[in-house]
Protein backbone atom coordinates (compact mmCIF):
# COMPACT_ATOMS: atom_id res chain seq x y z
CA UNK A 1 0.00 0.00 0.00
CA UNK A 2 2.72 2.46 1.01
CA UNK A 3 4.73 1.91 -2.19
CA UNK A 4 1.67 2.46 -4.38
CA UNK A 5 0.72 5.59 -2.48
CA UNK A 6 4.25 6.95 -2.79
CA UNK A 7 4.35 6.22 -6.51
CA UNK A 8 0.96 7.83 -7.14
CA UNK A 9 1.88 10.86 -5.07
CA UNK A 10 5.15 11.17 -7.01
CA UNK A 11 3.35 10.93 -10.32
CA UNK A 12 0.81 13.56 -9.30
CA UNK A 13 3.69 15.75 -8.18
CA UNK A 14 5.45 15.43 -11.53
CA UNK A 15 2.31 16.32 -13.48
CA UNK A 16 1.51 19.29 -11.30
CA UNK A 17 5.10 20.50 -11.79
CA UNK A 18 4.62 20.15 -15.52
CA UNK A 19 1.40 22.12 -15.37
CA UNK A 20 3.13 24.81 -13.34
CA UNK A 21 5.95 24.94 -15.88
CA UNK A 22 3.44 25.21 -18.71
CA UNK A 23 1.58 28.06 -17.07
CA UNK A 24 4.89 29.77 -16.24
CA UNK A 25 5.90 29.54 -19.92
CA UNK A 26 2.58 31.01 -20.99
CA UNK A 27 3.09 33.83 -18.51
CA UNK A 28 6.59 34.44 -19.86
CA UNK A 29 5.30 34.67 -23.43
CA UNK A 30 2.57 37.06 -22.33
CA UNK A 31 5.22 39.22 -20.68
CA UNK A 32 7.28 39.18 -23.90
CA UNK A 33 4.21 40.36 -25.80
CA UNK A 34 3.59 43.20 -23.36
CA UNK A 35 7.20 44.30 -23.35
CA UNK A 36 8.42 43.91 -26.93
CA UNK A 37 5.40 43.92 -29.26
CA UNK A 38 5.94 47.63 -30.01
CA UNK A 39 9.66 47.21 -30.75
CA UNK A 40 8.99 44.25 -33.01
CA UNK A 41 6.28 46.18 -34.82
CA UNK A 42 8.69 49.04 -35.49
CA UNK A 43 11.38 46.66 -36.78
CA UNK A 44 8.85 45.02 -39.08
CA UNK A 45 7.47 48.37 -40.24
CA UNK A 46 10.93 49.75 -41.05
CA UNK A 47 11.35 47.04 -43.67
CA UNK A 48 7.79 46.37 -44.88
CA UNK A 49 6.44 49.94 -44.54
CA UNK A 50 2.91 48.66 -44.31
CA UNK A 51 0.96 48.63 -41.05
CA UNK A 52 -1.06 45.46 -41.66
CA UNK A 53 1.95 43.49 -42.92
CA UNK A 54 4.03 44.63 -39.96
CA UNK A 55 1.35 43.48 -37.51
CA UNK A 56 1.11 40.13 -39.26
CA UNK A 57 4.88 39.77 -39.00
CA UNK A 58 4.76 40.47 -35.25
CA UNK A 59 2.03 37.87 -34.84
CA UNK A 60 4.04 35.30 -36.78
CA UNK A 61 7.02 36.05 -34.57
CA UNK A 62 5.07 35.30 -31.39
CA UNK A 63 3.61 32.17 -32.92
CA UNK A 64 7.15 30.98 -33.60
CA UNK A 65 8.03 31.74 -29.99
CA UNK A 66 5.01 29.73 -28.87
CA UNK A 67 6.08 26.84 -31.07
CA UNK A 68 9.59 26.78 -29.58
CA UNK A 69 8.60 27.64 -26.03
CA UNK A 70 10.70 24.77 -24.62
CA UNK A 71 13.86 26.71 -25.46
CA UNK A 72 12.59 29.89 -23.84
CA UNK A 73 14.47 29.22 -20.60
CA UNK A 74 17.81 29.09 -22.46
CA UNK A 75 17.44 32.56 -23.98
CA UNK A 76 19.78 35.11 -22.42
CA UNK A 77 18.72 38.29 -24.20
CA UNK A 78 15.05 38.01 -25.12
CA UNK A 79 14.97 41.37 -26.91
CA UNK A 80 17.76 40.55 -29.39
CA UNK A 81 16.35 37.05 -29.83
CA UNK A 82 12.91 38.41 -30.70
CA UNK A 83 14.32 41.06 -33.02
CA UNK A 84 16.28 38.34 -34.80
CA UNK A 85 13.11 36.26 -35.25
CA UNK A 86 11.04 39.17 -36.52
CA UNK A 87 13.90 40.17 -38.81
CA UNK A 88 13.91 36.75 -40.43
CA UNK A 89 10.11 36.75 -40.69
CA UNK A 90 10.18 40.15 -42.34
CA UNK A 91 12.89 39.18 -44.83
CA UNK A 92 10.89 36.06 -45.75
CA UNK A 93 7.78 38.16 -46.35
CA UNK A 94 9.73 40.71 -48.31
CA UNK A 95 11.17 37.98 -50.53
CA UNK A 96 7.70 36.52 -51.15
CA UNK A 97 6.07 39.86 -51.98
CA UNK A 98 8.93 41.26 -53.97
CA UNK A 99 6.77 42.44 -56.83
CA UNK A 100 4.57 44.70 -54.70
CA UNK A 101 5.62 48.37 -54.80
CA UNK A 102 5.75 49.70 -51.26
CA UNK A 103 8.27 52.49 -51.48
CA UNK A 104 6.14 54.67 -53.78
CA UNK A 105 3.36 54.94 -51.26
CA UNK A 106 3.69 58.61 -50.29
CA UNK A 107 0.59 58.54 -48.07
CA UNK A 108 2.23 55.80 -46.01
CA UNK A 109 5.30 58.03 -45.72
CA UNK A 110 3.16 60.87 -44.37
CA UNK A 111 2.32 58.67 -41.41
CA UNK A 112 5.95 58.90 -40.37
CA UNK A 113 6.08 62.69 -40.41
CA UNK A 114 5.39 64.68 -37.25
CA UNK A 115 1.66 65.25 -36.77
CA UNK A 116 1.87 68.95 -35.85
CA UNK A 117 3.80 72.05 -36.91
CA UNK A 118 3.82 71.39 -40.65
CA UNK A 119 1.81 73.01 -43.41
CA UNK A 120 0.18 70.90 -46.07
CA UNK A 121 2.90 71.77 -48.57
CA UNK A 122 5.61 70.93 -46.10
CA UNK A 123 3.94 67.62 -45.41
CA UNK A 124 3.84 66.74 -49.09
CA UNK A 125 7.44 67.84 -49.59
CA UNK A 126 8.53 65.87 -46.54
CA UNK A 127 6.71 62.77 -47.73
CA UNK A 128 8.35 63.06 -51.13
CA UNK A 129 11.78 63.42 -49.53
CA UNK A 130 11.07 60.33 -47.42
CA UNK A 131 10.05 58.39 -50.50
CA UNK A 132 13.26 59.51 -52.25
CA UNK A 133 15.44 58.34 -49.37
CA UNK A 134 13.60 55.03 -49.10
CA UNK A 135 14.01 54.43 -52.84
CA UNK A 136 17.73 55.09 -52.53
CA UNK A 137 18.00 52.71 -49.57
CA UNK A 138 16.14 50.06 -51.57
CA UNK A 139 18.81 50.29 -54.27
CA UNK A 140 21.60 49.40 -51.85
CA UNK A 141 22.96 45.83 -51.80
CA UNK A 142 21.01 43.62 -49.37
CA UNK A 143 23.71 43.29 -46.71
CA UNK A 144 24.51 46.98 -46.60
CA UNK A 145 20.82 47.89 -46.62
CA UNK A 146 20.06 45.60 -43.69
CA UNK A 147 22.86 47.04 -41.57
CA UNK A 148 21.77 50.59 -42.39
CA UNK A 149 18.14 49.94 -41.43
CA UNK A 150 19.05 48.20 -38.18
CA UNK A 151 21.55 50.93 -37.28
CA UNK A 152 18.69 53.43 -37.36
CA UNK A 153 17.26 51.75 -34.26
CA UNK A 154 18.74 53.67 -31.38
CA UNK A 155 18.13 50.86 -28.91
CA UNK A 156 20.33 48.43 -30.88
CA UNK A 157 24.10 48.55 -30.45
CA UNK A 158 26.46 47.35 -33.16
CA UNK A 159 27.09 44.18 -31.14
CA UNK A 160 23.35 43.50 -31.04
CA UNK A 161 23.01 44.23 -34.75
CA UNK A 162 25.77 41.70 -35.33
CA UNK A 163 23.84 39.16 -33.23
CA UNK A 164 20.65 39.80 -35.16
CA UNK A 165 22.39 39.38 -38.51
CA UNK A 166 24.54 36.48 -37.31
CA UNK A 167 27.86 38.14 -38.04
CA UNK A 168 30.67 39.99 -36.25
CA UNK A 169 30.74 43.54 -35.00
CA UNK A 170 33.63 44.51 -37.30
CA UNK A 171 31.68 43.24 -40.31
CA UNK A 172 28.72 45.35 -39.23
CA UNK A 173 30.92 48.43 -38.98
CA UNK A 174 32.51 47.92 -42.40
CA UNK A 175 29.12 47.27 -44.01
CA UNK A 176 27.73 50.41 -42.44
CA UNK A 177 30.65 52.43 -43.77
CA UNK A 178 30.10 51.04 -47.28
CA UNK A 179 26.33 51.61 -47.00
CA UNK A 180 26.78 55.27 -46.09
CA UNK A 181 29.17 55.86 -48.98
CA UNK A 182 26.89 54.15 -51.47
CA UNK A 183 23.85 55.99 -50.16
CA UNK A 184 25.50 59.36 -50.50
CA UNK A 185 26.46 58.53 -54.09
CA UNK A 186 22.91 57.38 -54.88
CA UNK A 187 21.35 60.48 -53.34
CA UNK A 188 23.74 62.67 -55.29
CA UNK A 189 22.66 60.94 -58.52
CA UNK A 190 18.98 61.34 -57.61
CA UNK A 191 19.43 65.05 -57.02
CA UNK A 192 21.31 65.55 -60.27
CA UNK A 193 18.68 63.51 -62.15
CA UNK A 194 15.95 65.81 -60.87
Amino acid at each position, binding site marked *: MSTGTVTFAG*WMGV*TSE*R*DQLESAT*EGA*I*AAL*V*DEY*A*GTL*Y*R*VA*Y*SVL*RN*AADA*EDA*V*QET*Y*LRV*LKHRESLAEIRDARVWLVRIVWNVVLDRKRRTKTRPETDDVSEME*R*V*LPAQGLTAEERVAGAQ*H*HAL*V*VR*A*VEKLPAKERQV*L*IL*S*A*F*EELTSVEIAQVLGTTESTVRSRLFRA*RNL*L*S*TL*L*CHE*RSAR
Partner: protein
Amino acid sequence: MRPDELGQLDDRVKAAEAVLRRLTKVAPPEGLEERMHRRLQASRLENGARNGIAWGFGGMRVRFALAAVLLAVLAGGGWEAYRVRLAGGTKEARQVPVAPTLPAVGADSGFSAAKGMRVPPTLTPLRVPAVPKKKVAGKAKKAVPVAAAPASSPVAGPAQP
Protein backbone atom coordinates in the same frame (compact mmCIF):
# COMPACT_ATOMS: atom_id res chain seq x y z
CA MET B 1 36.32 65.03 -54.14
CA ARG B 2 36.37 68.49 -52.57
CA PRO B 3 35.88 68.89 -48.80
CA ASP B 4 32.71 70.97 -49.27
CA GLU B 5 31.35 68.20 -51.51
CA LEU B 6 32.20 65.67 -48.80
CA GLY B 7 30.37 67.85 -46.28
CA GLN B 8 27.32 68.00 -48.55
CA LEU B 9 27.32 64.24 -48.96
CA ASP B 10 27.57 63.81 -45.21
CA ASP B 11 24.59 66.10 -44.78
CA ARG B 12 22.60 64.06 -47.27
CA VAL B 13 23.49 60.85 -45.53
CA LYS B 14 22.64 62.38 -42.19
CA ALA B 15 19.29 63.52 -43.54
CA ALA B 16 18.66 60.08 -44.98
CA GLU B 17 19.55 58.43 -41.69
CA ALA B 18 17.20 60.81 -39.92
CA VAL B 19 14.43 59.65 -42.24
CA LEU B 20 15.26 56.03 -41.43
CA ARG B 21 15.27 56.83 -37.72
CA ARG B 22 11.85 58.42 -38.09
CA LEU B 23 10.66 55.26 -39.77
CA THR B 24 11.87 53.24 -36.80
CA LYS B 25 9.98 55.48 -34.41
CA VAL B 26 6.57 55.00 -35.94
CA ALA B 27 3.98 54.45 -33.23
CA PRO B 28 2.55 50.95 -33.04
CA PRO B 29 -1.21 50.75 -33.60
CA GLU B 30 -3.61 50.91 -30.68
CA GLY B 31 -4.35 47.65 -28.94
CA LEU B 32 -1.51 45.74 -30.61
CA GLU B 33 -0.67 43.82 -27.43
CA GLU B 34 -4.28 42.79 -26.82
CA ARG B 35 -4.62 41.53 -30.36
CA MET B 36 -1.41 39.53 -29.97
CA HIS B 37 -2.68 38.00 -26.71
CA ARG B 38 -5.97 37.06 -28.35
CA ARG B 39 -4.28 35.50 -31.39
CA LEU B 40 -1.87 33.51 -29.26
CA GLN B 41 -4.77 32.24 -27.15
CA ALA B 42 -6.69 31.31 -30.29
CA SER B 43 -3.65 29.51 -31.63
CA ARG B 44 -3.32 27.50 -28.39
CA LEU B 45 -6.98 26.51 -28.51
CA GLU B 46 -6.71 25.61 -32.17
CA ASN B 47 -3.75 23.36 -31.47
CA GLY B 48 -5.68 21.68 -28.65
CA ALA B 49 -8.70 21.10 -30.87
CA ARG B 50 -6.51 19.73 -33.63
CA ASN B 51 -5.11 17.13 -31.27
CA GLY B 52 -8.66 15.97 -30.56
CA ILE B 53 -8.24 16.11 -26.80
CA ALA B 54 -8.23 19.19 -24.66
CA TRP B 55 -4.75 18.86 -23.21
CA GLY B 56 -5.14 22.01 -21.20
CA PHE B 57 -6.78 20.49 -18.14
CA GLY B 58 -4.90 17.48 -16.80
CA GLY B 59 -3.56 16.80 -20.26
CA MET B 60 -0.32 15.34 -19.02
CA ARG B 61 -2.13 12.78 -16.87
CA VAL B 62 -4.27 11.58 -19.77
CA ARG B 63 -1.25 11.33 -21.97
CA PHE B 64 0.69 9.45 -19.32
CA ALA B 65 -2.21 7.02 -18.74
CA LEU B 66 -2.57 6.34 -22.47
CA ALA B 67 1.15 5.74 -22.79
CA ALA B 68 1.08 3.36 -19.79
CA VAL B 69 -1.83 1.33 -21.26
CA LEU B 70 -0.08 1.08 -24.60
CA LEU B 71 3.13 -0.01 -22.93
CA ALA B 72 1.30 -2.64 -20.85
CA VAL B 73 -0.40 -4.09 -23.94
CA LEU B 74 2.87 -4.26 -25.83
CA ALA B 75 4.75 -5.77 -22.91
CA GLY B 76 1.97 -8.32 -22.25
CA GLY B 77 1.91 -9.40 -25.87
CA GLY B 78 5.65 -9.76 -25.95
CA TRP B 79 5.69 -11.78 -22.73
CA GLU B 80 2.93 -14.09 -24.01
CA ALA B 81 4.83 -14.81 -27.20
CA TYR B 82 7.99 -15.45 -25.21
CA ARG B 83 6.19 -17.77 -22.77
CA VAL B 84 4.61 -19.91 -25.53
CA ARG B 85 7.94 -20.27 -27.22
CA LEU B 86 9.61 -21.17 -23.94
CA ALA B 87 6.99 -23.91 -23.24
CA GLY B 88 8.03 -25.75 -26.44
CA GLY B 89 10.85 -27.62 -24.71
CA THR B 90 9.21 -28.51 -21.37
CA LYS B 91 7.37 -31.61 -20.10
CA GLU B 92 4.08 -29.82 -20.62
CA ALA B 93 4.79 -29.45 -24.30
CA ARG B 94 5.75 -33.12 -24.62
CA GLN B 95 2.35 -34.19 -23.27
CA VAL B 96 0.58 -32.52 -26.12
CA PRO B 97 -0.89 -35.28 -28.40
CA VAL B 98 0.83 -35.49 -31.70
CA ALA B 99 -1.08 -36.20 -34.88
CA PRO B 100 -0.02 -39.48 -36.63
CA THR B 101 2.12 -38.98 -39.64
CA LEU B 102 0.71 -40.35 -42.86
CA PRO B 103 2.92 -42.39 -45.17
CA ALA B 104 4.40 -40.35 -47.88
CA VAL B 105 2.62 -40.89 -51.15
CA GLY B 106 4.88 -41.59 -54.06
CA ALA B 107 7.41 -44.06 -52.76
CA ASP B 108 5.13 -47.08 -53.52
CA SER B 109 2.77 -45.37 -55.93
CA GLY B 110 0.15 -45.01 -53.25
CA PHE B 111 -0.62 -48.72 -53.05
CA SER B 112 -0.18 -50.83 -49.98
CA ALA B 113 -0.51 -54.49 -49.04
CA ALA B 114 -3.10 -53.67 -46.40
CA LYS B 115 -0.90 -55.35 -43.83
CA GLY B 116 -1.09 -58.62 -45.68
CA MET B 117 1.91 -60.96 -45.42
CA ARG B 118 2.88 -63.40 -48.02
CA VAL B 119 3.64 -66.81 -46.61
CA PRO B 120 5.78 -68.92 -48.91
CA PRO B 121 4.41 -72.46 -49.42
CA THR B 122 7.75 -73.95 -48.43
CA LEU B 123 6.90 -73.31 -44.87
CA THR B 124 3.50 -75.06 -45.08
CA PRO B 125 3.84 -77.73 -47.75
CA LEU B 126 0.74 -78.92 -49.45
CA ARG B 127 -0.34 -82.41 -48.57
CA VAL B 128 -2.14 -84.17 -51.25
CA PRO B 129 -4.23 -87.09 -50.15
CA ALA B 130 -3.42 -90.41 -51.79
CA VAL B 131 -5.61 -91.50 -54.60
CA PRO B 132 -7.64 -94.55 -53.77
CA LYS B 133 -6.61 -97.72 -55.57
CA LYS B 134 -8.64 -98.87 -58.51
CA LYS B 135 -9.68 -102.41 -58.61
CA VAL B 136 -8.61 -103.88 -61.96
CA ALA B 137 -10.36 -106.91 -63.16
CA GLY B 138 -8.37 -110.08 -63.15
CA LYS B 139 -5.73 -108.71 -60.86
CA ALA B 140 -3.45 -108.71 -63.84
CA LYS B 141 -1.61 -105.77 -62.80
CA LYS B 142 -1.11 -104.14 -59.54
CA ALA B 143 -2.31 -100.73 -59.34
CA VAL B 144 0.52 -98.29 -59.16
CA PRO B 145 -0.05 -94.79 -58.01
CA VAL B 146 0.66 -92.43 -60.81
CA ALA B 147 2.06 -89.61 -58.87
CA ALA B 148 2.80 -89.33 -55.35
CA ALA B 149 4.23 -86.15 -54.28
CA PRO B 150 7.42 -86.60 -52.52
CA ALA B 151 7.43 -85.32 -49.10
CA SER B 152 10.35 -83.15 -49.78
CA SER B 153 9.03 -81.66 -52.98
CA PRO B 154 8.68 -77.91 -52.52
CA VAL B 155 5.94 -77.47 -55.02
CA ALA B 156 3.50 -80.25 -55.55
CA GLY B 157 0.94 -79.99 -58.19
CA PRO B 158 -2.21 -81.86 -58.35
CA ALA B 159 -2.05 -85.55 -59.25
CA GLN B 160 -1.92 -86.27 -62.95
CA PRO B 161 -4.10 -88.96 -64.34
